[in-house]
């Protein structure tokens, strides 16, 4: 294919059949320019939008994080690194980091394994399998705000469904104040997050399981492997790329958690469920200390960036091989 001469090996359609050999050199150059223009033309709108709505605001937030700034007019009161030093002395912010870690660890240790178990289960021949899949996936379709309102009613202390159900089966002692108690709020929040998100991860795993060739499992079966061995040595390794993506999504989601917390607790009681994004919102839109809020968002961005890069470099490398656009071409 002639188009393999182009950068990236994938740009532009073939606009015309290859010209006769005599004018090939000039024609190729012309075609190349034309293709380049086409590429730029197609990418320009997206590029303008990306730069205008993503890149510039990000750079501006970085700039603003070095100022004491109320959010109107241009930042002028330079604060140097003050916002950042203040940040790392703020018990709420440090608590945010701890809670973020709490959610990440619990997600990886409980939520994802649970999702995997459900996926493996629902990959079996099972009566009503499609119904189960749909039911478990349904919570993911709900918006976080609706989920939040729903569960603040379910977990209303004393009056909520949760307490009534526990009472009905004689487990009154287990009922507590849920979201209203500083010591249980995070666990309750995690419960709701699991309810909402395990279905999504389960779907990912199910899709991954579909692509595990049955021959391999059958071969293992013939070799005398038990169910656990088949899962451990055949299914799991083949599911690894899906797992890695799912872990990635889960971690980034935990770092950026906002809507659910805001609706259910607004970060309370007494900051015990506050996340980085909630703290940022409080300072940016309640206290109008936009410079400080920008500093929080910069740190959040930094955490996500470092994690993403490291994860891609060390964990996702094998999966991404050949998938990303490189300048290597196809070697023809």
């Amino acid at each position, binding site marked *: 294919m002639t188009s393999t001469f182009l950068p990236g090996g994938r740009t532009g359609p073939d606009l015309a059949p290859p010209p006769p050999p005599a004018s090939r050199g000039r024609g190729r150059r012309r075609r190349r320019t034309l293709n380049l223009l086409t590429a730029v033309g197609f990418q320009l709108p997206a590029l303008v939008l990306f730069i205008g709505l993503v890149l510039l605001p990000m750079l501006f937030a970085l700039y603003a994080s070095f100022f004491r700034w109320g*959010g*109107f*007019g241009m930042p002028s009161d330079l604060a140097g690194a003050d916002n950042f030093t203040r940040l790392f002395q703020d018990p709420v912010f440090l608590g945010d980091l701890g809670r973020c870690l709490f959610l990440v660890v619990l997600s990886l240790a409980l939520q994802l394994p649970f999702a995997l178990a459900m996926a493996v289960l629902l990959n079996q021949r099972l009566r009503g399998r499609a119904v189960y899949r749909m039911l478990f996936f349904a919570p993911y379709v709900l918006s976080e705000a609706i989920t939040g309102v729903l569960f*603040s*009613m379910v977990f*209303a*202390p*004393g*009056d*909520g469904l949760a307490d009534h159900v526990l009472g009905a089966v004689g487990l009154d002692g287990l009922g507590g*104040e*849920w*979201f*209203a*108690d*500083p010591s249980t*709020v995070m666990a309750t929040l995690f419960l709701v997050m699991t309810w909402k998100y395990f279905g999504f991860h389960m779907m990912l795993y199910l899709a991954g399981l579909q692509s595990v060739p049955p021959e391999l499992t059958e071969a293992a079966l013939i070799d005398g492997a038990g169910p656990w061995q088949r899962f451990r040595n055949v299914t799991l390794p083949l599911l690894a790329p899906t797992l890695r993506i799912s872990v990635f999504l889960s971690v980034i989601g935990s770092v950026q958690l906002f809507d659910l917390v805001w609706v259910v*607790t*607004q970060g*309370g*009681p*007494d*900051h015990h469920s506050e996340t980085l994004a909630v703290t940022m919102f*409080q300072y940016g839109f*309640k*206290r*109008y*200390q936009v410079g400080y809020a920008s500093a929080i968002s910069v740190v959040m961005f930094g955490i996500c960036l470092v994690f993403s890069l490291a994860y891609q470099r060390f964990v996702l490398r094998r999966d991404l091989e050949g998938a990303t656009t490189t300048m290597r071409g196809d070697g023809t």
Partner: protein
Amino acid sequence: MGDRELSRRGFLAASAAAGLGMTALSGCGGDSGGDSASGTTTIEWWNISTTEPTKSVWAALAKKFEARNPHVKLKIVQLENDAYKAKMTALTASGKLPDVFHTWGGGVLRQQVDAGLVEDLTGRTRPWADGLLPVAKEPYLLDKKVYAAPFDIGMVGFWYNKALFRRAGVDTPPTTWTGFLDAVGKLKAAKITPIALAGKEKWPGMYYWAYLAMRTAGIDALRKASDTKDFSDPGIVAAGAHLKELVQLQPFQKGFLGAAYSAPTGQAATVGNGKAAMELMGQWAPVVEADAGKGLGSDLGFFPFPAVEGGKGAITEVFGGGGGHALRRGAPQAAVDFLKFFASEATDLELVKKTGVLPVVPAAESGLSDPNTKAVQAQLKAATGFQLYLDQAYAPAVGQEVNDSVAALIAGSKSPEQVAQSITKTAKQEQ
């Protein structure tokens, strides 16, 4: 800042507010730019009355004013509460305000006055403004100058369930802090939850601290603290200590730290359904209690925040706020005429009857029928001092810090001293 207003008007607004505001905007878009050549003055009137019935009542009043003043046209611009605040902040930064605009007074108005954007109405509203309820004018008095005319005023106090109080053997509402704590004890002994509190939203908790500070340190000390950015006054710390006494009695409903204000399981509903004996809330409380819960009907009573023994403040000093209209600097005389029209007895009577506000013109009291509203009005009329809602009186960051650290005190993670320190620290950070 936003929180209280949002909740107060939020319940009234349902979801229509934003849409209505937009409709109003687009409706007014066409006839802008009145032709001054033919002698017509166009006055832009920005307000936040996006909900019925206020919206149409105000529109009708505007028509009435136009009919009486044929050379004046009123252009109404209505924005929903939070949108209005955001828009006004931007306008203040740009230096151009509307001819007539809604204000809550306090810190934001001071900012606009300091920027030289607001007309000094001291001379121009004489003598008619002298007849208005003094306490209603209070939020707009800065350095003894008048910057706005009020149309609404209200205050915070205890709304209580008479039946539950009787059952606990509390015959008359307490007038002293000790008496109040006693009443709480009696209610608890009678297995009644004494107080409902929306811990999640923080501002209802702030009311306790603010009132206690007014009673112990006094209004002047609070003003001084805000001016000098130093809240370490012993009276203010003592207010926190008194609040702690109350918290230690565990007077609040189960799970109050997670409770919202107007939600179906929130503070207002808890009182409205008779599951707690009282709440400290503004004059809008009965409406929300009936809206979020069943409402108490004739069992509902009102009593002012009790005095603290040995404190500098009196029981007659009120904590509250309202709404007023300010003018941009250099606004035409017609705008002043409009303020006069809006603060007239006839207008106020109509507002009291149709939109449920408390009268700012004493004579408009005749429009009140509900005994509790009358009790609030009596308290306001006899007020010997006034403190604006702290989250409106102070800069947003300071107001939020007050809410936040008082919430921490109620949750038990901050001491009264630490509350004073946190607020001082935040106040000093703001320039």
